[in-house]
């Protein structure tokens, strides 16, 4: 398997691969985003209890899922970067961090906007809200640490180490906060049980989740390409390409 994977650790290959995937991923993301959000925001029936204001779920839940999904992707990349010293993995840690931070911020802000009509307050010190806020701080820590060194390479390595430490700590933080205080509603979709959400609302939600996922991949391709160019600017293949274009 490693023999098959190994060519993909080469920055040049990854650069061209990302370039080829990016337009398709972006187009798919926009399509799904439009489909899921228009369907969800305009054409689903209102909730019997929460009325129309529940519709923000179509942005809130996908961004919340992807805020955690991005973190695990970042941590896996960081682990690969630390163990096998793969440069591309290191750069993808830094490429994912801001995307994940923005998803986390979107989840927090839409959650506040949802909380105001439902709970009557913008913010409560509830388990899910607090752990999401801490997740945002962890992302910001990774970003800040990567920028704090005069040597870009050291910064990337330190940020990878912090991302791995954070992923060990994240479940601890999550459960400690969970036991501490909770008000947030339980999960509506789980893999193992029948979803507690009506199919007419479920489908646009699933499409939105997929859209946010594909959008994250598309943005990752874009950012990783930039990072590769920035870090490999002295390499012959970059120079050759810059000379051509």
């Amino acid at each position, binding site marked *: 398997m490693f023999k098959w994977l190994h060519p993909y650790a080469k920055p040049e290959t990854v650069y061209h691969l990302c370039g080829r995937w990016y337009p398709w991923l972006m187009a798919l993301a926009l399509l799904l985003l439009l489909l899921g959000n228009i369907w969800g925001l305009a054409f689903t029936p209102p909730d019997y209890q929460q009325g129309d204001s529940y519709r923000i779920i179509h942005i809130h839940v996908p961004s919340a899922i992807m805020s955690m999904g991005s973190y695990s992707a970042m941590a896996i990349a960081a682990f690969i970067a630390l163990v096998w010293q793969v440069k591309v993995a290191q750069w993808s840690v830094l490429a994912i961090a801001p995307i994940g931070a923005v998803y986390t911020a979107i989840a927090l802000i839409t959650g506040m906007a949802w909380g105001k009509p439902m709970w009557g307050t913008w913010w409560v010190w509830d388990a899910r809200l607090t752990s999401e806020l*801490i997740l945002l701080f962890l992302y910001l820590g990774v970003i*800040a640490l990567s920028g*704090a060194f005069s040597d870009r390479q050291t910064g990337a390595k*330190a940020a990878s180490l912090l991302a791995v*430490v954070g992923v*060990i*700590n994240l479940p601890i*933080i999550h459960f*400690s*906060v969970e036991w501490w205080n909770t008000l947030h509603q339980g999960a509506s979709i789980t893999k193992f049980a029948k979803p507690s959400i009506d199919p007419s609302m479920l489908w646009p939600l699933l499409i939105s989740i997929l859209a946010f996922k594909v959008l994250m991949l598309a943005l990752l391709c874009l950012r990783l390409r930039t990072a590769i160019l920035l870090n490999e600017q002295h390499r012959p293949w970059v120079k050759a390409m810059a000379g051509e274009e």
Partner: protein
Amino acid sequence: MVTLGVFIRRELRLLARQKADWLNPVLFFIIVLCLFPLGVGPEPNMLQLMAPGIVWIAALLSVLLAAERLFKDDFRNGVIEQLVAARQPLLSFVLAKLVTNWLSTGLPLVLLSPLVALLLNLQTPAFIAMLLTLLLGTPLLSLLSVMGAALTVSADKGGILLALLILPLYIPLLIFASAAMEAASMALPYHGQLAIMLAMLLFALALVPLAVLSALKLNVS
């Protein structure tokens, strides 16, 4: 083992010669404690209610204050570089740092806890709970702050960055420690919280030295 002893003696001698390094955080702890009654009012009942949070937040901040200078001097004068180049004794260096960091920042807080109990009007059960949580919690604080200090040792803006990295990781400890003290003040059992704190401490004890090692190595290379 021999190198561990040598390193611990070296660290202790350094601490004895640079008293500000460990005295200032302790003074800071007491000053922060004194600010709370001035800020929220001196009613004994209110102080009793807020004591768990106050004690633990003051402890977090003072440990953080001590952490910043932990590796700075050794990094500047090249000790860490030499140790990384020599390869052999780096782990004992890290362990010595951990032990002496706790001795110089955690232990004083434990010893000061009777004074804190007097200042914040704590009853005996709450005081015992505070003593136990400090005993279990401050080593964990030391572990995490040593890791943060190792990560940021060659960074340009160490201080604020260290707070941003480490304070989120302190949160579980803060929650369980203050929960234990609260339970104690209401005469409820708090063994569960203590057990979880001990579990977190052992878990960190197993993994943090490894993280510190690789953090030091990447800062030198």
